[in-house]
């Protein structure tokens, strides 16, 4: 009961204040319901003093409505024991966990989750790194691809029960994979799969790295060879063929940690952007016929504006400046800044990190998961960043902290004019220096019209952060679905036009962040606007349709073919 009162007070306080004063008044955006949510997951990284490389890189997770009941369930990847063996690598684990969203508990007042891992059929056999979600066979049930330090796994969702189809589907990859993306690269209506692979590390080939003072520390990726990524084309039935070589994506590679698919050059075809750790990133521009060319250097997204490669971990894509093209935000190592690449509309980018005041506030942290989200539904895209070091922090070590890599997470407010302000200090729920955060999953867990957050922290419990401010502003939620009304149309974009003429563009995607999969629904924050003029959807096959008269403050299913068709060459007005 007290919690209801507290929430009510916070809500009243929030509604009385303009958004810009929220952080000044230290109004919490999120409440931490980690210990009340029913998610009893504890991540185990398997650390035993050897400083094995994978233990500090894991892990991510996925928001997946696996039972198709309209709310987001949660899958969190698990690590395990990384044991040294004379013959081969061996792993012990207790597997990732799937939690069913049971909606808001009337007793608690919060959403409640139940562990359904055993019933779900999922048995992850390897040291988990990340997860990607996509309906690979078009049956309307989202499937789950797990990236591992070890063989990856594809779990086919058969009406809420998962079956391991990795081998029959032809998507096994025993390399160390971190992030993956489902995307319809050939626009044939089924989801293809890009798998980002990291380095050629094995426990038997483990190296010992040292820092000044001669003390052992985690190695950098430069101590190992990079591994090529993989691209699998869907045969249309949920089985795949490996087109890594013929597509050209193995021509260059380098320790991939983040992957996003989007049409960066607006030629109607989905391209793939790969964030690499310490070497130039790749922008695989789709040439058609399943061929790709890496144009990252030319496009200005391989290295930062000083021509330097950075240790890229996470990545997100969005039209943050509302100019109808897709921009990129990358997370990096402490000492480097995170980097904002702004698209000029043609698929060529400029590093505008400094201009957006995103440099200084990111330099102290090593950042992994990152998501562009409109946390306060004020119509612009803010940034949430999950941080955690990769070099042992001596002060924390001295204090006896078992995994001395703790760093605070960050929430950055878009203050307009393409600038950001770090408002983390006002947010108690961001656990200052208490966690080693990696995967960042964002979605509307309680379907109340604002974006909630789950952070999978390394070697401890996850953070479940419920947004308590966003839905006080107006909003509109959309699920962009295929003709059957079952399958999310990843890669499609939707343009919302306000009566003022202002347009907001959002893309449907689950990929990005770090080793994680997000809510595939589009959520428009609308501030004080009480009506909109229209929405126009550009589907992945290039066709466009318009919808009018959508009721605000709720989610709608936007089904392909049900809108008013626009001539393909007609510009959106």
């Amino acid at each position: 009961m007290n919690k209801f009162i507290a929430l009510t007070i916070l809500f009243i306080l929030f509604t009385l204040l303009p958004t810009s004063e929220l952080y000044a008044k230290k109004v919490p955006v999120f409440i931490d319901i980690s210990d009340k949510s029913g998610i009893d997951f504890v991540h185990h990284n398997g650390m035993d003093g050897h400083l094995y490389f994978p233990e500090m890189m894991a892990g991510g997770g996925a928001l997946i409505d696996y039972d198709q009941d309209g709310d987001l369930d949660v899958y969190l990847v698990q690590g395990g024991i990384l044991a040294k063996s004379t013959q081969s690598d061996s792993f012990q684990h207790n597997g990732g966990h799937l939690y069913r969203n049971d909606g808001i508990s009337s007793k608690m007042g919060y959403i409640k989750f139940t562990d359904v891992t055993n019933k779900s059929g999922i048995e992850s056999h390897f040291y988990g790194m990340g997860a990607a979600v996509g309906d690979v066979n078009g049956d309307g049930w989202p499937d789950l691809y797990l990236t591992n330090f070890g063989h990856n796994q594809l779990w086919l969702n058969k009406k809420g029960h998962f079956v391991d189809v990795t081998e029959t589907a032809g998507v096994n990859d025993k390399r160390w994979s971190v992030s993956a993306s489902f995307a319809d690269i050939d626009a044939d209506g089924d989801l293809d799969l890009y798998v980002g692979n990291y380095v050629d590390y094995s426990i038997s080939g483990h190296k010992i790295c040292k820092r000044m003072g001669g003390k052992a520390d985690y190695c950098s990726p430069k101590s190992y060879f990079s591994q090529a990524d993989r691209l699998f084309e869907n045969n249309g039935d949920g089985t795949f063929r490996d087109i890594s070589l013929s597509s050209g994506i193995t021509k260059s590679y380098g320790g991939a940690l983040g992957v996003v698919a989007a049409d960066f050059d607006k030629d109607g075809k989905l391209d793939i952007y790969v964030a690499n750790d310490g070497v130039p990133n790749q922008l695989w521009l789709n040439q058609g016929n399943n061929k790709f060319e890496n144009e990252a250097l030319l496009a200005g997204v391989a290295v930062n504006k000083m021509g330097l490669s950075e240790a890229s971990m996470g990545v997100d894509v969005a039209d943050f400046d509302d100019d109808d093209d897709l921009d990129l935000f990358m997370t990096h190592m402490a000492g480097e800044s995170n980097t904002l690449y702004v698209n000029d509309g043609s698929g060529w980018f400029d590093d505008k990190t400094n201009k957006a005041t995103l440099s200084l506030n990111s330099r102290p942290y090593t950042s992994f998961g990152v998501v562009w989200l409109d946390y306060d539904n004020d119509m612009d895209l803010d940034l949430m960043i999950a941080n955690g070091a990769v070099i042992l922090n001596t002060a924390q070590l001295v204090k006896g902290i078992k995994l001395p890599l703790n760093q605070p997470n960050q929430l950055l407010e878009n203050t307009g004019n393409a600038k950001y302000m770090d408002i983390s200090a006002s947010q108690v729920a961001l656990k200052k220096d208490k966690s080693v955060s990696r995967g960042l999953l964002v979605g509307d867990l309680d379907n109340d019209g604002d974006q909630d957050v789950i952070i999978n922290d390394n070697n401890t419990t996850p953070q479940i952060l419920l947004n308590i401010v966003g839905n006080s502003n107006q909003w509109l939620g959309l699920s962009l679905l295929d003709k059957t009304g079952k399958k999310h149309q990843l890669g499609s974009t939707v343009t919302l036009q306000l009566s003022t003429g202002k347009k907001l563009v959002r893309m449907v995607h689950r990929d990005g962040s770090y080793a994680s999969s997000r809510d595939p629904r589009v959520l428009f924050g609308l501030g004080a606007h009480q009506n909109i003029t229209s929405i126009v959807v550009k589907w992945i096959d290039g066709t466009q349709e318009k919808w009018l008269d959508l009721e605000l403050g709720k989610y709608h299913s936007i089904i392909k073919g049900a809108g008013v068709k626009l001539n393909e060459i007609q510009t959106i007005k």
Partner: protein
Amino acid sequence: MKFKLLSKYIKLKNTLEVLFLVGLFSANLSALPLPEIYNLDLKGLSQENISQINLAKQKIISFSETGSKEELAELFGQIGMLFHTIQQLEVAKSSYLSAVDLNSKEPRWLYLLGMVFQQDGNAEEAYNIFRRSFELQPDYLPTLVHLGNASLQKDDSAQAKRIFSQLYLQDGYKAISAEALGRIALKDGQLIEAINYFKEVLNLQPQADRVYYFLAQAYRKAGKKDEAKQALTKRGERFPHFSDPLMAYVKSLNISVHQMLTQGYSFLKAKNYSKAVELFDKGLQIEPDNVNLLTAKGLANEYLGNDKAALALYKKALSLKPTDTTALFNLAVLEEILQNPKRAAELYTKLLTVQKDHIDALAMFSDLQFREGNFEAASKTFASLQLVTPSNSQVMLYRGVSLLATGNCPWGRNILSEALNLDPANGNIALILSVTLAQCSDEAGLKRARELVNQVYASQPSFQSARFTAYILAYIGKFEDAIDLQTQAMFEALKNGGLAQYPDLAVNMKRYRAGKKPDWNWQAYAYEIAKSAPTRKGK
């Protein structure tokens, strides 16, 4: 009292960062009157550096009671430089701040403090500090360079342009200014101007190859995609050089053995072997029994052709540390170069008992065994190498052929199948696998062999694809087609060094003409693909 007096000058801007740098506190912490930030773990530095730092600390302690503010400021500045050179920037920052507090008229400490802030990415602070330094010493032009760069970082293009335009007129600063002016022009969309500036930099300092990236960006924006792509092929990591005596002095203070080793290796990489030896010698003067330096000097001597000296240095290193893997490896390779494979093999074996997963040693030793025809041993060493590089299809290929050369067709086939799964576009693996499928598989295997050779020949008609396709065709009795392809293979062989190196071609041609199944000698083939012995050039 002393502690209180000193700590007054220590600005600890960020408690967390300071704590990060505290390190494992030494046992006599309470005995030191300097704040904890100065109590770093200095292992890994040269004795000389450690002595200098300790001496500087002692001087500060003693001067804190008797010295003037200026003298104490000087001491804080000096110790700041020592920490700056070993990249302990928080301690350096703290020291410079103390120096500036004690003597605000000294431009050096402001300049160096600005450098630390700039390295931290704090352009605003850096700008203000460089400005103060410049006001005190306007003739020290490097300050202007950094002032300009800080302006650029702050997004103040107009100010940056003013600064670099002024600097452009000064001798020795044209290249660095042109580079900055080019970037400003690029940012402002003045593309022709930008291109001209970048070209000027490359004309003045061709080694400043990072400028090619900026040039490519300018071309790109000007719509000159081909020129942009061309420029990107030349892109490197080096910025234009400008003279900065103060920073050069700071860098020269780093006399750690590690630094000498690193610098020496840079010279080795740049093929300046004499300079490398000079640096290694300098390091050896500080630490005469440093195994890493002895080994590095050995390598430099090898490149200079002084094999005798190299052998002696490696042996001395090993006498000091018999298990040193680098010395063992370098000596082993040198023995191979000197055509002593037996001694090389002994050394590799020893090295691999010290570190069984030493990738380079496994690679070199397996190649040596393969080249020497010791295929059984080679197959085992390749297996060990495969364990540590599980995704390397080349290792699998050689492991497979080693097994085939020992007569173990089924295992060779299995390994090659795995290699092809990993690297499906590798024509060589596909071709070799096809022969194993013909030799030790069933009908389905033979069918697969045909598919493989057809696939490879169709996509890459070459000597090898013709040779292997002919083999498979003959194996299944299609002799006419086999003869055609064998003729093509022989023609290609003639063009590339003659038939003598591929005895199977003539032998099998006769067999095909006689309608006989082909003959294949795996050992002969293994010798054919064995990698040549290492040379000094390739080391």
